[in-house]
């Protein structure tokens, strides 16, 4: 045998690649006989060692447990190996189904495979170009030491990949299709790119964060003349439904950094002769209180428009009794209580308190939940009172759920993505792992995130269950197609399809209260503001059931005042929850939901007939009958409620009447009444309203202190502290 230095067999020999023993020994002999070849072999081996070392030093892409689990996922668990073979087309469908939950690019790539074999050269955008790594910095090393068994039986469908963010495709097909199939999803992902459109975001300028921007809703009110303060026109009532233009009040309505609040215009007193009906949707939100508290704890008074009095009042739990009659006995899901007393700030005036108390639902009897957390992981969330709080809050929540419940996590920032596919809640390690990997970074595309979250929610829809997207954000939607009205439209549409939206506001500085409140209203969920661990516990432990379940929906209240007893009245708070009078009986008109154990309180301030009170008068009506029916003389008002049970389309009516003989002195009213009134007065003070006269913070504090009662969570005591702070800052 003769071997030259150029012979590849030399390399093969050096690398131990000669399989045939006879050939190998021949080469060995030849090499051993020739020092030059010997050196050559040594050189090759040395080179190969260097190469090996260099190559092995190359970073190995870290695969998270999720990614591994996803790689191990059985496309169709029930089919046996052989049957898989036989029913190949079925398997592809199954594989597609599994992939449907995988991220869009993957679905795309399967598609590519099929296309590419048929239609070579078809111009299609590369799969990978449709997404970009989200700036969420998922630490790749984070999985070390958590070799948890992702042996998927609990996951359905199989978990997808680990935290990966996709660049959202543009709007378009996204919302129009309900119940997207895998194919639809593919379309969703490919829609833009296959058309060859450039990838990109629509500028976030549509909702600019600069102060004074005219958002669509502002625009609509701006276009209208400012609401008339006279009672001149009956049509005036309609306008109460829309947001009023801000009333300029020096120093009170300044923009605070970039936080945004919709203007609130205090309600004026109205005569029942002009407006006999007061109609509004209930509101179970509490966000405003926590936000107000945040301002006060920071040493400043909140901007007037951040103060929504009904949310302040409803922040507290009240001891009103739950309904006595069970649902099975034909009872209502909530009890309605009314009480009247003199107003603490004006002896002449009375307060009418209307309280709804939902029945308490034992935790074990709760409906199965399908929760999709939509977490804002944008850069603005990167502070201790935001993302870490979100994680903590979620941890608290998931600890209380079990295998009946499903939890998914969608994140959004510059891009949005599914970081935790819908997973039964007993997979605590899996969930915890996903939570631990979240980091803030990048900017926000709330629009795409919200769509993805709703999609995941729909895909895991639980009939008769609690299907809900829980948005955790500081509301800083600054990238993407986040036209506010479009977002709220989505929320409203999804709510009709049975997926509610709970909004949890976090953080400060660029908090967009206006959008969030609007979203939760349209999404038919509650809205809470979480500014501390304590608040996270309140929202997720004390009030969890109230916040994520509903026992009745579209709860509307309409109060008819008797002009013989009432000269004027006003509803305290609920400014942006007003409904038209005719909406009350219109079951198509949506309104707020109530959860188990929720208390919803509304106060009316009433000026009794015969009092000295200046109202811009109207002439005595000439054609209206005084009253068509005999009215018992003592009737002050009739309170009507309409609600639907969660599954119903048709509303039920509850009617209660308030009588003048039930009015007591304020001091005689119960703790809940007095405390609620104190909170309402506090709200007026913070809004710098002159409608409670000289009533002082000290008086508010005094009433509240005397009405603390049992105060299980310490919230009422905390309130008195806040009153003291507000007093201090207002000097």
């Amino acid at each position, binding site marked *: 045998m003769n071997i030259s230095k150029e012979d*590849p067999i030399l390399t093969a020999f050096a690398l131990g690649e000669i399989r045939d023993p006879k050939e190998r020994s021949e080469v060995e002999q030849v090499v051993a006989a020739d020092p030059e070849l010997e050196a050559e072999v040594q050189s090759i081996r040395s*080179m190969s060692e260097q190469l090996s070392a260099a190559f092995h030093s190359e970073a190995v892409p870290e695969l998270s447990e999720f990614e591994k689990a996803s790689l191990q996922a059985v496309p169709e668990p029930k089919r046996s190996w052989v049957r898989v073979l036989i029913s190949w087309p079925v398997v592809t469908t199954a594989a597609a189904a599994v992939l449907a939950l995988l991220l869009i690019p993957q679905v795309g790539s399967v598609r590519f495979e099929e296309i590419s074999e048929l239609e070579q050269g078809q111009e299609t955008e590369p799969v990978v170009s449709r997404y970009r790594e989200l700036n969420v910095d998922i630490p790749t090393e984070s999985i070390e030491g958590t070799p948890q068994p992702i042996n998927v039986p609990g996951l359905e469908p199989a978990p997808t990949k680990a935290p990966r963010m996709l660049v959202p495709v543009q709007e378009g097909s996204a919302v129009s299709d309900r119940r997207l199939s895998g194919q639809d999803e593919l379309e969703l992902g490919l829609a833009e790119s296959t058309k060859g459109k450039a990838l990109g975001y629509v500028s976030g300028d549509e909702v600019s964060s600069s102060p004074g921007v005219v958002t669509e809703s502002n625009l609509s009110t701006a276009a209208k003349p400012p609401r008339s303060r006279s009672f001149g026109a009956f049509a005036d009532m309609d306008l109460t439904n829309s947001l009023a233009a801000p009333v300029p009040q020096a120093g009170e309505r300044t923009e605070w950094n970039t936080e945004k609040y919709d203007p609130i215009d205090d309600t004026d007193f109205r005569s029942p002769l002009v407006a006999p009906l007061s109609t509004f949707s209930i509101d179970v939100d509490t966000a405003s209180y926590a936000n107000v508290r945040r301002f006060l704890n920071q040493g400043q008074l909140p901007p007037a428009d951040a103060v929504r009095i009904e949310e302040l009042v409803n922040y507290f739990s009240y001891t009103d009794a739950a309904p006595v009659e069970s649902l099975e006995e034909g009872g209502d899901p909530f009890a309605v209580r009314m009480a009247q007393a003199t107003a603490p700030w004006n002896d002449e005036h009375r307060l009418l308190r209307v309280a709804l108390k939902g029945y308490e639902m034992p935790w074990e009897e709760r409906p199965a939940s399908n929760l999709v957390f939509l977490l804002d992981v944008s850069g603005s969330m990167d502070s201790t009172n935001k993302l870490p709080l979100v994680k903590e809050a979620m941890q608290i929540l998931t600890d209380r759920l079990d295998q009946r419940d499903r939890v998914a996590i969608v994140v959004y920032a510059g891009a949005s993505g599914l970081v935790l596919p819908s997973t039964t809640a007993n997979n605590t390690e899996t969930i915890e792992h996903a939570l631990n990997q979240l980091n803030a970074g990048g900017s926000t595309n709330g629009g795409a995130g919200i769509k993805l979250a709703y999609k995941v929610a729909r895909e895991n829809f639980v009939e008769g269950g609690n299907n809900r997207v829980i948005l955790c954000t500081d509301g800083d939607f600054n990238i993407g197609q986040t036209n506010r009205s479009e977002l709220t439209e989505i929320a409203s549409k999804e709510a009709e399809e049975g997926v509610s939206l709970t909004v949890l506001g976090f953080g400060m500085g660029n908090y967009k209260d206006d959008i969030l409140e609007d979203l939760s209203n349209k999404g038919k969920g509650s809205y809470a503001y979480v500014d501390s661990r304590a608040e996270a516990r309140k929202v997720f432990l004390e009030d969890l059931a109230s916040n994520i379940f509903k026992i009745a929906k579209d709860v509307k209240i309409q109060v008819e005042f008797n002009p013989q007893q009432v000269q004027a009245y006003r509803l305290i708070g609920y400014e942006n929850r007003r409904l038209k009078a005719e909406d009350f009986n219109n079951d198509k008109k949506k309104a707020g939901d109530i959860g188990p154990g929720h208390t919803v309180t509304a106060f009316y301030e009433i000026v009794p007939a015969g009092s000295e009170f200046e109202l811009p008068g109207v002439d005595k009506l000439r054609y209206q009958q005084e009253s068509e029916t005999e009215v018992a003389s003592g009737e002050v008002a009739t309170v009507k409620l309409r609600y639907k049970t969660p599954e119903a389309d048709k509303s039920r009516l509850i009617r209660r009447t308030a009588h003048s003989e039930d009015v007591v002195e304020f001091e005689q009213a119960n703790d809940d009444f007095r405390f609620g009134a104190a909170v309402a007065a506090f709200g007026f003070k913070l809004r710098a309203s002159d409608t409670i006269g000289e009533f002082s913070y000290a008086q508010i504090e005094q009433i509240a202190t005397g009405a603390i009662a049992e105060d299980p969570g310490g919230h009422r005591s905390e309130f008195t502290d806040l009153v003291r702070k507000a007093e201090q800052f207002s000097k």
Partner: protein
Amino acid sequence: MKNEQPNPNSEWVRSLVETHAADLTRYAASILGDDDAAKDVVQDSFVRLWREPREKVEDHVRPWLFRVCRSRALDLRRKGVRMSPLTDAQAAMRPAEGRGPEEAVERRDSHAQVMDFMQQLPENQREVVRLKFQNDLSYKEIATVTDLSVTNVGFLLHTALKTLRAQVTASGE
């Protein structure tokens, strides 16, 4: 929630994922220049694997996976107009885990040089070099992965090593 018996092959696939997934991802990333695209490709490869009868692939599953992975990655890259793959040299510059800092720096220097030279090889040579020295595939396995003949693989490797040796020697002088 389903509570089915685990698929008999689950454990097998699981072990395959443990053993090969990272290598496959790194390999696909070397073609695509993008870890996430690479992960997609690997994902697809495993989906493919499920479709394959176990007995048909079991005895050569590593090259089989590399083969599927390669063809998918190349497919993707052909269409990937926008992608700008990390060059191998750049990839080599990325720090590997698990080494002390000083040692790492020193090693990285010499490794980077080798990778730099490697980077100048023609693509077909680069590929077999990577399969051989990074993924420890045999000539025969590389032939399977790349659709080349064993002889061809041997020739490419031989040529590549020759070039590299010359360059390393030259740089050392």
